[in-house]
């Protein structure tokens, strides 16, 4: 029994954590952007994809992964700045169904453009850290633990930023009541842009971090966006803690469920969890009832 625990359960739990962290990266950006700007961004997964492709391009020029990461994230941030300024600024205050539609179209444009620029074949990224480590007898790649570590640091940083810094206070103020915040002199458009760029850069960061594991191809964003949305909705739109908890929950459920039941049903399980949550608490686990 013990070695079943170590050989089967332990790696699963770790996979769940790693995958949960990646989804958390994307879900955090999604939920903060929604919480703050009421924008439902269906193209959020494409920034994840662009981050991976940018990393691939930079690697072909400077073959050092740890230089490629910041450069790729910067490129995604610039793209985010550009799209926020041109498109998203026109979406504020409009019915969410228009957000879904615009970002739906934007996602198609990004995917097609990526295919034109980089071609449709899957690009391979070298795993920067190939070492594996002995964990209670089972072999586990260090790179994934690294992602876990980076993930936890980033999440703590965001939590700290929101909770204790003045910028965080401004962001939360604008989220509560944007007109009042504006009246108090907070430059709301600046906060909007910086939060959008931050959220999108986070997704790009997750993209390049995962590229050595999942490799890089134009439709990688689509595989991720549905799960990220479910996580955000379960956690309660706009609720950071909710999104974090839900990401780990979904990551673990999928990883552990796929031991006993067939993985495809495990994947559908995620949707069932969403449906049950919505029935029990229509505003999400942590969302305030009747909110939005």
């Amino acid at each position, binding site marked *: 029994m013990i070695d079943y625990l170590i050989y089967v359960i332990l790696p699963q739990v770790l996979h769940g954590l790693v995958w949960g962290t990646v989804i958390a990266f994307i879900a955090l950006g999604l939920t903060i952007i929604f919480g703050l700007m009421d924008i*439902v961004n269906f193209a959020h997964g494409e920034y994840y994809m662009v981050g991976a492709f940018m990393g691939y391009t930079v690697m072909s020029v400077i073959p050092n992964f740890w230089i490629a990461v910041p450069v790729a994230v910067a490129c995604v941030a610039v793209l985010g700045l550009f799209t926020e300024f041109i*498109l998203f600024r*026109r*979406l504020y*205050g*409009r*019915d*969410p*169904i*228009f957000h*879904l*539609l*615009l970002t*739906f*179209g*934007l*996602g*198609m*444009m990004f*995917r*097609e*453009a990526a*295919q*034109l620029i980089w071609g449709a074949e899957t690009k391979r990224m070298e795993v920067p850290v190939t070492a594996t480590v002995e964990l209670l007898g089972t072999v586990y790649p260090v790179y994934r633990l690294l992602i876990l570590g980076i993930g936890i640091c980033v999440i703590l940083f965001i939590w700290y930023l929101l909770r204790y810094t003045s910028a965080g206070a401004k962001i939360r103020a604008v989220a509560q009541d944007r007109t009042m915040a504006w009246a108090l002199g907070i430059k709301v458009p600046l906060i909007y842009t910086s939060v959008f760029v931050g959220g999108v850069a986070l997704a790009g960061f997750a993209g390049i971090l995962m590229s050595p594991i999942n490799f890089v191809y134009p439709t990688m964003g689509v595989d991720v966006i*549905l799960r990220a*949305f*479910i996580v955000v*909705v379960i956690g309660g*739109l706009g609720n950071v803690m909710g999104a974090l908890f839900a990401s780990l929950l979904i990551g673990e459920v999928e990883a552990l469920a796929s031991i006993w039941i067939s993985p*495809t049903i495990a*994947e*559908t399980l995620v*949707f*069932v969890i*969403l*449906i049950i949550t*919505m*029935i029990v608490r*229509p*505003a*999400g686990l942590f969302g305030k009832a009747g909110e*939005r």
Partner: protein
Amino acid sequence: MAKLNSVSNFKKTFLVHAIILAALAVLPLFLNGYHQKLAVEAIILSVFAMSLDLVMGYAGIATFGHAAFFGIGGYAMGVMLKFLFPSIWLGLILAGFCTAILAFFIGFVSIRAKGIYFAILTLAFAEVVYRIIFHSYNTPLGGSDGLVGVPTPMLHLGLVDIDLRKTVNFYWVAVAFAYLSYLTCKLIVGSPFGSILSGIRENENRVPFLGFNVKWSKVTAFVLAGIFAGFSGAMFTAFKTYADTEQLNFLLSGKVIVMALIGGIGTLIGPMVGAVVITIFESIISTYFRAHHLIIGALFVIVVIFMPKGLFGLFARKDRNNNGS
């Protein structure tokens, strides 16, 4: 909605309808084989877009899983024609029945959620339906291979039998189907029930105080829209001789909303025209441009930014337009 229908007003609309129907009836004679096929497909999809308008345009409910009903209607017709009994009528009845049950289940369960939560909940339900059918590998539904080889039977209309294998016949049947669906929806929208829906769209909180059960009205609207989407899906499968999981995909749910929006929601006829324009546009673009998804994506963006009330929204009378966003 309209002012009291005085007699002259009735004659005017009757004339307009007669002209449009005559033009549609004559159209296929000018089209070659392929364009006739495309026209039939466009007309069938126009009913699908109109069914969405029932919930989105009139009851103000945003649903992001409408393709589930279109797909289930298609599979129901496919199963009826291929395995049970080759009759279009029975196929439509089975399609209507299955989509009504599915729509009632999804509507009843999700109605507690509002706005964007409801939209994402319907998306989740549609995704579950998609995956179940996609993985129904060794069942007659054929899983990801799709339900193929659906026969095209004769359409029995009492004394006369129509051979649907000839495209022109199917075209006229499709026009009749679309026109009848339009009239029924026009009746529903203009009925007392229809005015309750517009009340819900305008100000949902006040409606219960006037004596209406909002939850029941919304679920009914959702079921009606589901049934018409199911009929449209059933005709699509009968015409294309196959039912595929692609008709259940969330990409189609997105596309149908664009069709409705580009035509102008809240007008019934708008989404129908939107469906025809998008079907033609997509078929042309995909022939002449390699990156046609890029252009269709751009069309989504342009519609949302420049034409939120769509083609018909633009031409609709100013004072009549609803609150818009």
